[in-house]
C-alpha cells in the first residue's frame, strides 16, 4: 500500500516525531491544527497545514470527518494517528480504510478487540498469558453502584477501577475500600466518557507492590512478530508514566525470554500488525500479568529506539507499506546499553503535579552525546490548556544504568524552560533518590514519596540559591530588565505585542 504523503492526525511532540520519520524517508507530510495551534511547531515543520476546528479536542483533533476531508483535500494517501486522540479509535481506522487511506497502525478489528480491556483480557488468557484477577465483562453506565459494590467485594479490596476504553491513565482510580467506591466510580466514568466517549468500566485486583513492565512489539503483514527488550515504566503519577527506562533492573534474561514470548503470542493470536505494546504488571515474586495492549505507538518508544538502534516510526510506515520485518529477533532482545526517559510536563510537581500552562519565555534543550530531546515546544509559544501538558521527552543513553542516570542529570541541568512550571525539579530529585538509584520502586513510588514528603517541595531553593537569586534579580533590574511582561524586555513580549497588532488588523 502506498505511503507517499502522510496526514498526521495529531499535534505536539508526536506530530513532530512523525514528521521527522517521514522526512528521513522522503515522504511528504500534512499537519492539522486547532485554532490555538496555528503557530505550533508541527504546523511550521510540515509541508502542508490544514485547520480542523476550535480548540476543544472534540471540535478538532477528534473530528474524524474533518480529518478525512483534509486527507482528501491534501491528496494524502496515508494517516498516522500518533498516540492519544484517535490513535486507538477503530472508527477512525475504519474511516481511513473506507476512504482508501493507509492507516499506519493495526486493523480496526484488532483495535476494537484490544480496545475493550475486557476482550483484551480474554485474548491474553486464550494465548496463555496470565491476567490479573478481575471482571471479565464491562460494567456500563447503567450498572448500579450497588451491583458494582457486590462485584468489588467478590474480587476483594484493594482494587483498580478502570475504563474499558481507557489509556494514558485516564478513567482510572484506586479503590482501597468500599467507602471510596462511589466517588471513584463517578470520577472514572465521567473521565472515561469525556475522554473516550464510553463510560464503561471494569474492576481488577490491585497487586500490592507491582512494577509496570511493558513489551514493545512490531508485527508485519506476513506473520512476523518481533518483541523488544522490556521497558520499565513503574514511575507514575496519577497512573501516568513520567520516567521510563530499558532494560528493567527487575527482569532477568530468563524472565525477559518468557515475558517477551508471552507478549508476542498474544499479538500473534489476535493477528496484530504494526507497532503495539503489551503492558504487564510484574509482582514481587516474579510472576507477570497481562494488563492491556496499546494498539499504537507509545509515548516512551524512544527508550526502545535507543537500546535497539531501530527507528520504530519508520518501521510503522514500512509495515504499513507491506514490507517484511528484517530485524534480527535476537538483536531486538539484546539491550544495547541503557536508556532512560523523563517526560517534561508543564505541571507543577509541588502542587500535586497539576497542569501549569502558560507561555514558554525561554527554552533551551540539552544537547551532546547520548542525549535526545523529542520536543513539540518552541520558545515564545504558549502551552495550551486543552491538551496533554507534556512538552517534551528527554532521553539519555549510556553504557549502563548509573551512567545513563548521570547523563540524564547533566541533561536536566542543561534544560532551560522558563515561564511555566515543569516536572524537571521532580526528576532532579528522583534521580538522586536512593530507592530509585537502587531500583527499589513500584508503581506507587511517587504517591508514597508525595505522602512521605508531606508537602516538602521538590523545587526547594537552598539559602545559597536564594541569595544568588536575590543578586541576579537586583542586577537584572539594575541593568534595565523589568518585571512586567507588558513593558519588559523579553523577546516573547515583542511577539505578544505583534500578535496583538495582528489581531487588531484582522
Amino acid at each position, binding site marked *: 500500500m502506498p505511503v507517499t504523503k502522510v496526514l498526521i492526525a495529531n499535534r505536539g511532540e508526536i506530530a513532530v516525531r512523525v514528521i521527522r520519520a517521514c522526512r528521513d524517508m522522503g515522504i511528504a507530510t500534512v499537519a492539522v491544527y486547532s485554532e490555538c495551534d496555528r503557530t505550533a511547531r508541527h504546523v511550521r515543520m510540515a509541508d502542508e497545514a490544514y485547520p480542523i476546528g476550535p480548540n476543544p479536542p472534540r471540535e478538532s483533533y477528534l473530528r474524524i470527518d474533518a480529518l478525512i476531508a483534509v486527507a482528501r483535500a491534501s491528496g494524502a494517501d496515508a494517516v498516522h494517528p500518533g498516540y492519544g486522540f484517535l490513535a486507538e479509535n477503530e472508527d477512525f481506522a475504519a474511516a481511513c480504510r473506507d476512504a482508501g487511506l493507509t492507516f499506519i497502525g493495526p486493523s480496526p478489528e484488532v483495535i476494537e478487540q484490544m480496545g475493550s480491556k475486557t476482550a483484551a483480557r480474554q485474548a491474553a488468557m486464550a494465548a496463555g498469558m496470565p491476567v490479573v484477577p478481575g471482571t471479565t465483562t464491562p460494567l456500563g453506565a447503567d450498572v448500579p453502584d450497588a451491583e458494582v459494590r457486590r462485584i468489588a467485594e467478590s474480587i476483594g479490596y484493594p482494587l483498580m477501577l478502570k475504563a474499558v476504553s481507557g489509556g494514558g491513565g485516564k478513567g482510572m482510580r484506586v479503590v482501597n475500600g468500599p467507602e471510596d467506591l462511589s466517588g471513584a466510580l463517578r470520577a472514572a466514568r465521567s473521565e472515561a466518557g469525556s475522554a473516550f466517549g464510553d463510560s464503561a468500566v471494569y474492576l481488577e485486583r490491585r497487586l500490592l507492590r507491582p512494577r509496570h513492565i511493558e513489551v514493545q512489539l512490531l508485527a508485519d503483514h506476513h506473520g512476523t512478530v518481533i518483541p523488544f527488550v522490556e521497558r520499565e515504566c513503574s514511575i507514575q503519577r496519577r497512573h501516568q508514566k513520567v520516567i521510563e527506562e530499558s532494560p528493567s533492573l527487575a527482569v532477568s534474561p530468563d524472565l525477559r525470554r518468557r515475558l517477551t514470548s508471552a507478549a508476542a503470542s498474544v499479538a500473534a493470536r489476535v493477528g496484530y500488525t504494526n507497532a503495539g505494546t503489551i503492558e504487564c504488571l510484574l509482582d514481587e515474586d516474579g510472576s507477570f500479568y497481562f494488563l492491556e495492549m496499546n494498539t499504537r505507538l507509545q509515548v516512551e518508544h524512544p527508550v526502545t529506539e535507543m537500546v535497539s538502534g531501530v527507528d520504530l516510526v519508520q518501521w510503522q510506515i514500512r509495515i504499513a507499506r507491506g514490507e517484511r520485518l528484517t530485524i534480527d529477533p535476537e538483536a531486538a532482545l539484546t539491550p544495547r546499553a541503557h536508556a532512560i526517559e523523563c517526560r517534561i510536563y508543564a505541571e507543577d510537581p509541588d502542587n500535586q503535579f497539576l*497542569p*501549569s500552562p502558560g507561555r514558554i519565555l525561554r527554552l533551551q534543550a540539552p544537547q551532546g552525546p547520548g542525549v535526545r530531546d523529542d520536543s513539540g515546544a518552541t520558545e515564545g509559544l504558549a502551552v495550551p490548556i486543552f491538551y496533554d501538558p507534556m512538552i517534551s521527552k528527554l532521553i539519555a543513553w549510556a553504557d549502563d544504568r548509573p551512567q545513563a542516570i548521570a547523563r540524564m542529570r547533566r541533561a536536566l541541568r542543561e534544560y532551560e524552560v522558563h515561564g511555566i512550571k515543569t516536572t524537571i525539579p521532580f526528576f532532579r530529585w528522583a534521580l538522586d533518590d536512593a530507592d530509585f538509584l537502587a531500583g527499589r520502586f513500584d508503581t506507587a513510588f511517587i504517591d508514597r514519596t508525595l505522602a512521605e514528603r508531606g508537602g516538602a517541595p521538590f523545587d526547594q531553593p537552598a539559602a545559597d540559591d536564594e541569595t*544568588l537569586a536575590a543578586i*541576579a*534579580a537586583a542586577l*537584572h533590574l539594575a541593568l534595565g530588565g523589568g518585571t512586567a511582561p507588558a513593558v519588559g524586555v523579553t523577546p516573547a513580549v515583542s511577539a505578544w505585542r505583534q500578535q496583538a497588532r495582528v489581531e487588531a488588523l484582522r
Partner: protein
Amino acid sequence: MQYALRIGGRTRQVVLRRAGQGWHVTVDGSSFDVHAAVVDGARLSLVVGDGAGAGRSVPAVVVPGREADALDVAVNGTTVAVQVASPERSRRRGGAAGDDTGPQRITAPMPGKVVRVLVAPGDTVAAKQGLVVVEAMKMENELRATRPGRVTTVAVAEGQSVDAGAVLAVVE
C-alpha cells in the same frame, strides 16, 4: 542602587555598588563581588568571586512572574520567586490561600473549566472532601477541603472558565 526583594516570605535588602569592572553586592549585610554580563533580555551571566570575572559561574534566567512586580529567577537548577517589594504591594498581599487558620479559600491551581460543583453554600464538609472539579489539559482535578468546615461561598458555576488563582469556594 538598593532593592527590597521578598523571597520565601522574607524581605532581603540588596545593595549594588559598581566596583571596578564588577559590582560589590550586599545581601542583608553579607558581601559579594560579582561580575555581571547580559546575555539577552532574560539571561544574565554572573561570576561570583573577585568582581573582575574570576570565580563561580552562575548563569541566571530572569523572567516576569505571574503576579505584578514578580520575577522568577532560575539559578543553580532551581527557580526562586522574587517579589520586588514596595509599600503598595505589601498591602495587596494579605490574606493568601493556604493559611493554617481562618477561612480556606480554595483556588484554581491552573486555568481551566469547572466541570462539576460538588457542594453548596451551607454544606458541612470533611477534610479531603471534594468541592469543585476543574478540567484542564484533559485531566479532571478534584479540588478538596484541607480541613473540615462549612462552605460559606461557592464562587463558580459548572461550565465556567476560570483563571489560575481564581477563588472557587470558601470553607470556614
